[in-house]
């Protein structure tokens, strides 16, 4: 079964450093998303992306965050200057334009120290 793949699975970074989380969405999917889950809390929407543009972003997705589709397969989330409160599991997700199901990757666990 096709799946969303994410790298790295775990990253530890110092506060103030830049982090790039990478995702390869399912190949025929056109809609891409990033969600995050702080330990023990609910999954929260960050941003949606289509046709090389942000479609919607949440109040969490401030100027420190950016997304990019640098080539035909990768979808990245960049955090410019990490804060302690950015420590969370970040999930990439994708779906077909005609379907309802959003498929999530296994997540990238980010720890900011």
């Amino acid at each position: 079964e096709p799946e969303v793949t994410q790298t790295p699975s775990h990253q530890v970074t110092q506060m103030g450093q830049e982090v790039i989380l990478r995702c390869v969405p399912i190949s025929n999917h056109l809609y891409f998303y990033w969600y995050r889950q702080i330990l023990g809390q609910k999954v929260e929407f960050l941003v949606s992306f289509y046709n090389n543009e942000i479609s919607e972003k949440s109040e969490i997705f401030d100027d420190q965050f950016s997304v990019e589709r640098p080539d035909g397969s990768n979808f990245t989330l960049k955090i410019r200057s990490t804060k302690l409160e950015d420590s969370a599991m970040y999930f990439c997700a994708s779906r077909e334009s005609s379907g309802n199901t959003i498929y999530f990757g296994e997540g990238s666990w980010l720890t900011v120290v």
Partner: protein
Amino acid sequence: QQQVKQSPQSLIVQKGGISIINCAYENTAFDYFPWYQQFPGKGPALLIAIRPDVSEKKEGRFTISFNKSAKQFSLHIMDSQPGDSATYFCAARDYRGSTLGRLYFGRGTQLTVWP
């Protein structure tokens, strides 16, 4: 503001029993209500989903009951098995911000099924 409220926070059920998880919402613009299952260290995986024009949907041992007037929906797991032990999230989709939609998740229910 909590868009989707989920209860209970944790649930312990004996093998063979029925697990029931409840969710409530306020936003009448929600148009799609999925349930996700999450095992430790894994991403959420779609379990079953329902549209608001249907009152019940069953897939195997999993059933969603949907009450549009009460703005409530629930997941029933029949004949619960130890392998069902996981965290379950209800969610609701809102299309108003963009055509891609965004999901609002409940806080999750940690289900433990004892053998």
